[in-house]
């Protein structure tokens, strides 16, 4: 939970305290008149002056707060209790109860709030005692809706079903798991209703339909001061100020509460730091399409910067498939996003270079980088359903990729859909993403990626969200394109069997670093890093020995061990492993490992 909005709390608290303490503040009677001094300006006895009947303005303001806040609070509390009960019952009992509560709430919602209030006031007459039930009626639907939605959400949670599996009764589930879960949203709704009730009460009183004179109320005071605004403008200003400040404080409290109860991840902006000088050793190797040199990604967190990707160096040659393998949190996806300049806001490249055909992507201005993306280097992401824009037809989304870089020949999107094996492409080109299955959406993503004949294709877990038979189709399609076009493929995955199917070479990442690199067949047959070996043993093989887990967990990037990052979980650990951080060493042509005991 995030920090609570203390300043707003304090503001509302002060106002509420003043209102509560009104009788004991020695302010006198708010309705005592002094017609001789009507409209008198501020004086020692009357700090804020006197109104058109000579009543003390400060006294009336404080007593007015008492009226406004008590009406608003009582009405919100009434609405909260009844509305929440209705919502919980409706959501929990379902069936006819659900229908009845929701429908009657729908009818109430057909009336704009002020109108509903006016209708009731017509029938029952003005006054504070009418106001409370009227306002309660106005805010009732909000509570019912929030509670109902909360119950529905909670009902579908696995942990609520877990209670059912355990054999828990409805009462226990409601008390133990559902009520605590809707408590937050209901509290927020309460603060919203209270703030809004203050506005509505003052509005009604302003019209003379709320609190009855001579009782003090901010709305009444504003209404009365209107008549004398030319002679005594201050008289109008004071209640306006009091009302606005109160609502401001209450609104701030609502916003704060909402943030605290429903925490959205806080994203922080960060700018990519441009490295000033090029170290001579960072020049690219001759033939590689993609050449990463010491790439390091940093993220600024409230606790200081962390480096989830450190010193990643790898080469990708023409027509080659390099698999970047690692478990969640290994930094493999961040590496690819750093290459393409698509890092999320808080992350930045802190060191290193990424050469694409002799251009350093890390130091390229965004506009130049944009021209490379989608043309020279293309990307496919994991989740095809969220990676396509739901409101545009797939044909348009393909066309957009082409037109960002060159003129499009007519019928090109259809041709691309045909190339990625989508049946009936003339019709499908006009489809929206939700009208296609997951496998077809991923084919559309591939069509977008190959639209401009890229040299480098980065595929980030492209088959993870797909079923086995569909995964086979997509892998087949990617292999087909590679054969046809000498495309270089950087394939990011956590699945070792998939790597075995498609990769020429493999780079294994652990806790932000490459720990082993080499030709796929060699690495799988004779792993030189204990992590690679352990990972291979943990993958189930049909008729092999049962899979073995790796004890322990991956160290988080803010608490890395001083020596080898894998040492705490390593069966081959010796004291030297924990003493110093090992370097990535070349042990044979094309084979690298970050282990000091690789030959042990």
């Amino acid at each position: 939970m995030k920090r609570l909005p203390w300043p707003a709390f304090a503001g509302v608290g002060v106002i509420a305290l003043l209102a509560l303490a009104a009788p004991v503040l020695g302010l006198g009677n708010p309705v005592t008149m002094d017609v001789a001094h009507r409209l008198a300006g501020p004086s020692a006895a009357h700090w804020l002056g006197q109104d058109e009947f000579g009543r003390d303005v400060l006294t009336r303001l404080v007593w007015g707060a008492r009226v406004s806040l008590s009406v608003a609070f009582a009405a919100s509390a009434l609405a909260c209790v009844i509305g929440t009960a209705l919502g919980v019952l409706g959501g929990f009992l379902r069936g006819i109860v659900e229908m009845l509560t929701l429908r009657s709430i729908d009818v109430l919602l057909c009336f704009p709030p002020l109108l509903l209030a006016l209708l009731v006031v017509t029938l029952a007459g003005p006054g504070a005692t009418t106001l409370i039930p009227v306002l309660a009626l106005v805010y009732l639907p909000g509570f019912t809706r929030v509670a109902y939605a909360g119950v529905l959400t909670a009902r579908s949670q696995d942990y609520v079903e877990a209670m059912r599996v355990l054999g828990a009764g409805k009462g226990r589930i409601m008390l133990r798991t559902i009520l605590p879960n809707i408590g937050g949203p209901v509290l927020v709704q309460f603060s919203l209703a209270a703030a809004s009730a203050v506005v509505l009460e003052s509005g009604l009183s302003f019209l003379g339909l709320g609190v009855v004179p001579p009782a003090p109320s901010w709305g009444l005071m504003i209404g009365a001061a209107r008549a004398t605004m030319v002679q005594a403008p201050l008289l109008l200003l004071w209640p306006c100020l009091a009302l606005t400040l109160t609502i401001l404080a209450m609104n701030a409290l609502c916003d704060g509460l909402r943030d605290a109860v429903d925490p959205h991840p806080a994203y922080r902006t960060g700018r990519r730091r441009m490295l000033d000088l090029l170290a001579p050793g960072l020049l690219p190797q001759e033939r590689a399409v993609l050449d990463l040199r010491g790439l390091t990604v940093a993220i600024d967190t409230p606790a200081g910067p962390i480096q989830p990707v450190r010193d990643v160096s790898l080469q990708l040659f023409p027509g080659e498939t390099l698999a970047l393998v690692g478990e969640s949190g290994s930094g493999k996806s961040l590496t690819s996003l750093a290459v393409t300049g698509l890092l999320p806001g808080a992350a930045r490249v802190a060191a290193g270079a990424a050469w694409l055909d002799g251009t350093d992507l890390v130091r390229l201005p965004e506009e130049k980088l944009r021209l490379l993306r989608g043309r020279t280097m293309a990307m496919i992401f994991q989740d095809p359903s969220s990676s396509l824009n739901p409101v545009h037809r797939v044909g348009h989304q393909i066309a957009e990729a082409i037109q960002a870089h060159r003129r499009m020949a007519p019928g090109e999107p259809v041709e691309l859909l045909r190339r990625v094996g989508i049946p009936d492409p003339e019709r499908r080109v006009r489809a929206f993403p939700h009208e296609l299955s997951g496998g077809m959406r991923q084919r559309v993503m591939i069509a977008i990626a190959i639209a401009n004949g890229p040299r480098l294709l980065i595929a980030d877990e492209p088959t993870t969200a797909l079923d086995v038979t569909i995964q086979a189709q997509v892998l087949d399609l990617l292999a087909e394109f590679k054969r046809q076009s000498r495309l270089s493929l950087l394939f990011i995955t956590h699945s070792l069997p998939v790597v075995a199917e498609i990769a020429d070479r493999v780079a294994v990442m652990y806790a932000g670093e490459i720990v082993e690199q080499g030709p796929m067949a060699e690495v799988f047959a004779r792993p030189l890093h204990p992590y690679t070996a352990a990972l291979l043993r943990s993958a189930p093989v049909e008729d092999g020995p049962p899979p073995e887990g790796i004890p322990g967990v991956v160290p988080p990037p803010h608490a890395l061990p001083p020596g080898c990052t894998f040492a705490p979980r390593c069966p081959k650990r010796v004291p030297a492993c924990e003493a110093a951080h090992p370097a990535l060493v070349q042990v044979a042509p094309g084979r690298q490992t970050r282990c000091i005991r690789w030959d042990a």
Partner: protein
Amino acid sequence: MNAPLVRADSLTRHFGTAGLFGRGRPVQAVTEVSLSIARGEAVGLVGESGSGKSTVGRLLLGLLPATSGRALFDGTDLAQAKPAELRALRRRMQLVFQDPYGSLDPRRTVGAQIADALVIHGIVPPPARAARVAALLEQVGLAPEHAQRYPHEFSGGQRQRVGIARALATGPDFLVADEPVSALDVSVQAQVLALLADLRTRLGLAMLFISHDLPVVRHLCDRVAVMYLGRVMEEGPVAQVFASPRHPYTRALLSAAPSLHARHRRTRILLQGEPPSPADPPSGCVFRTRCPYALPACAEQIPALQGTEHRVACIRDDID
């Protein structure tokens, strides 16, 4: 072996579609599934998304009522059981969820959540509860002091252990594990699978292991049932089904799974297209629209599961 512990008898479950006047076809999630699980036996249920395998698990636990057919636990029909009877049965069958994050209440300590089972069924007297929770935690490889922590303080693998401890608290005979490791990293998967295998032999649990990962099923289960579009296509001992699959869908599924070693790689049968909608399944054999061996006769009638030990629902027994 005597009467099975769990039996599905032509279980069928259709989900109505939303719509004011009940328009639209019902989704046929599960159709006429018959299955039995003996005491201490582990049965794998494999299939792709939308094949209805999770629904079968929920039906067998009585969490969903069946549209037709029966789900029996130790001879009792769950639909006929009285509330008190059902509560007593609940003790004996438990569920392990797929999502280790969503299946634990974020607002309560894991100890309290494990203790829920003990409280609801009055299994142990209050003073002994803490000791029992500690024992359960140790059983799944966690430390007793973990009971005081909240779910967010655990890693995914540890949460799944907590979920298993909660399921074991009632002392069940039967466990439905619904993709219990698919949300976990490979190295953690193996730990949890080893735990499940160990518990199974130690406690003599019967288990329905729902998964889309074929090699995992091969290791953990005695028998396997392959589902496609709500129906069982093939069922039999794991060794037989994996070594000589007889249904074309099982063959395609096995051949599509990528494998670490080239020697396990089967000649890939690439299935064309995608599974049809369960709201509108094809006539006859539901697999025929994607089957490389389909004949006109396949559209005529629904093939029944045939055989004794190794059953298969396909009219083509001539393919090889």
